[in-house]
């Protein structure tokens, strides 16, 4: 739950063992952050900040969750802060929303333009989920998304957050949210097709 303040999370002091944190959780937290913010240097910084913040609050941890869950919650809040700063920077959000999609659809009749028209890729059945090459292309395509689109996509499709929560945290209107969801998918799909064939 991103909105919950992790400081309220309570812990049993015996359950906290900071001398083991790096060896036990650093790779896990790093992976978690990298996937969600698409920037490995920043992910590294966030892992460090997470441990240091946790250290300051360790007296407040009372063991109602595991150490790992507690650390992840702190990291999650830091990730949302990154999303927020990315989405509210000068005109960043607006740019992404106003970006023209006539590239994908004909501006008069809304029909697919030739180069973006979906073709069968052989991934329509879910066994594509095991295809490593396809996974690699999807990751590369996601990296190319504008930061705000990536944040929205990641919060919705990876973390399964509610639309209300995403709009609130990223200061989006619901109609902007749907525009971003739509453009992101059209864009990702087109990128997959371009790189897969």
């Amino acid at each position, binding site marked *: 739950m991103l909105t919950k303040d992790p400081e309220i999370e309570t812990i049993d002091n015996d359950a906290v063992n900071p001398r083991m944190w790096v060896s036990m959780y650093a790779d*896990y937290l790093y992976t978690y952050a990298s996937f969600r913010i698409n920037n490995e240097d920043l992910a590294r910084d966030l892992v460090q900040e997470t441990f240091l913040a946790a250290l300051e609050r360790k007296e407040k941890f009372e063991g109602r969750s595991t150490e790992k869950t507690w650390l992840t919650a702190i990291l999650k809040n830091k990730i949302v802060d990154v999303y927020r700063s990315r989405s509210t920077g000068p005109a960043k959000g607006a740019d992404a929303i106003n970006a023209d999609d006539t590239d994908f659809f004909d501006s008069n009749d809304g029909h697919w333009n030739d180069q973006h028209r*979906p073709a069968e890729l052989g991934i329509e059945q879910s066994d594509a989920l095991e295809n490593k090459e396809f996974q690699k292309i999807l990751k590369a395509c996601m990296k190319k998304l504008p930061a705000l689109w990536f944040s929205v996509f990641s919060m919705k499709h990876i973390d399964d957050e509610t639309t209300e929560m995403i709009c609130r945290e990223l200061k989006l209107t619901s109609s902007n949210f749907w525009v971003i969801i739509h453009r992101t998918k059209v864009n990702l799909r087109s990128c997959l097709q371009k790189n897969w064939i």
Partner: protein
Amino acid sequence: MKELNESELKKIAYNCRKATFLIEKQQIGQITQREKIELKIHLAGCSICVTFMQQSAVINQMARKLFTAGYTELKLDDGFKEQLQKRINTQLEKN
């Protein structure tokens, strides 16, 4: 609900932008009864958007799977980890 007239039907039948928007909205939220009918009419005549819909669902599933920690784990470099643990230990001793 009022009947859809001919020009509205034509608009729906040809508007892939609108159809794909409704597909995305339906996958994670709610669309109205009227929108459901519009989408159905469109998909009945547009195999391209049917393909889009299938691929869109696969992309969602794959993204979730790929980015769930535990599926693939990245590694921080050892030097960084060592420094970090030292920093934590120093901080601990201060308290």
